[in-house]
């Protein structure tokens, strides 16, 4: 009996949280206009969310591309199809790994920082202090960070894919001897701009939206103690990872299903 009671309670709690999260999201989005009137708030957040994640994204992208080049070469050379290495590297980066891995890194690098920042602001009563001064903390604090995440994510995913493809080329044609012309021309023949690249960008925008939403809401909703903030930070990373991977499956099924 206790079990059923607990199940009901936790279901109610999670639906309650989803409802509060949606309310929070609507409030955040309604603040977009006022942030656009004060772009200084936005550039500051673009710096701490986007620029600070630039290095980890670039280096990871390079290595992911190099590993793809290496592994792809060994598998493809069994079939005598090393020439299609470019297609394999580019398709897997542009469609899947670029948006997904950069979103996971983004959640770990920027999302956790956002949660901790907002949670600490709440714990030290800075948010209620703002309310006392008749400043809407959502418009002033949350919306710029949300927009910054939304803008940085597709840019970072684009950098990730581009650097990865170059990394694959360095390993593939630099070290392993795949013809450089074949690497690029086969890639250009197979990768479609709308089907592959635009869909990849749409994916990364969706991931940026979801990751920023989760990170900011977890921070805003955190129990204002040091333990509460640390739990919220953990929840951000875990929930973002789940959501990104689950959404990726759905988006892939929708976008690439008809082939």
């Amino acid at each position: 009996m206790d079990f059923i009671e607990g199940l009901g309670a936790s279901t109610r709690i999670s639906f309650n949280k989803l409802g509060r999260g949606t309310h929070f999201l609507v409030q955040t989005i309604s603040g977009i206009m006022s942030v656009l009137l004060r772009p200084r708030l936005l550039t500051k957040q673009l710096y701490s969310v986007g620029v600070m994640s630039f290095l980890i994204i670039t280096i990871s992208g390079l290595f992911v591309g190099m590993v793809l080049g290496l592994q792809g070469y060994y598998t493809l050379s069994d079939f005598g199809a090393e020439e299609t290495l470019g297609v394999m590297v580019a398709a897997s980066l542009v469609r899947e790994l670029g948006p997904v891995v950069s979103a996971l890194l983004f959640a770990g690098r920027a999302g956790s920082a956002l949660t901790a920042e907002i949670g600490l602001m709440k714990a030290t009563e800075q948010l209620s202090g703002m309310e006392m001064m008749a400043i809407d903390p959502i418009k002033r604090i949350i919306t710029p960070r949300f927009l910054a995440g939304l803008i940085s994510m597709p840019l970072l995913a684009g950098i990730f894919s581009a650097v990865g493809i170059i990394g694959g080329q360095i390993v593939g044609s630099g070290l392993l001897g795949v013809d450089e012309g074949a690497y690029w021309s086969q890639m250009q023949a197979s990768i479609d701009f709308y089907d592959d690249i635009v869909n990849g960008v749409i994916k990364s925008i969706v991931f940026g939206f979801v990751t920023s939403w989760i990170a900011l809401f977890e921070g805003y909703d955190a129990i204002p103690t040091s333990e509460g903030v640390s739990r919220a930070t953990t929840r951000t990373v875990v929930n973002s990872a789940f959501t990104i991977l689950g959404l990726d499956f759905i988006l892939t099924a929708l976008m690439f299903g008809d082939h």
Partner: protein
Amino acid sequence: MQHTRNQDTLVGLLVASGIAGLFFLAMHVSNLSSFSDEDSYTITAKFENSGGLKVKSPVSAAGVKIGKVTSISFDPKTYKSVVQLSINSKYSTLPDDTTASVFTAGLLGEQYVNLEPGGSETYLKKGGEIEITQSAIILEKAIGQFLFKSAAEEKK
């Protein structure tokens, strides 16, 4: 003030490199630069069998890509495969006795339409139809015929 100016520069750099990355993907990785839809004309070819030809398969002449397949449908009256080819307007001087055949690039490669120009003085018009076509070679059929033939030779 110096600090925020630095931040602005770095944000600018991020946005610039992000756009550069996406631009690189669009122009260097995808097929966007190689062919656009605006400056092209459509011709039709009817094949007995278009094999594994797909929409977006390349159309080439003398080994050079000059267009792509835009649609493939089955004609219920003639029982043929109707293939629409979109050809770049730069190549508007194809003779009307051009032969279209479905070839395979390599043994396992993708299938494409090969156009072989004839000697006619008149050119194919927009919306025109290629009269002479050659079907795709179906590997299973060819192997079947080969086995049948070698079995018949053994009997002799």
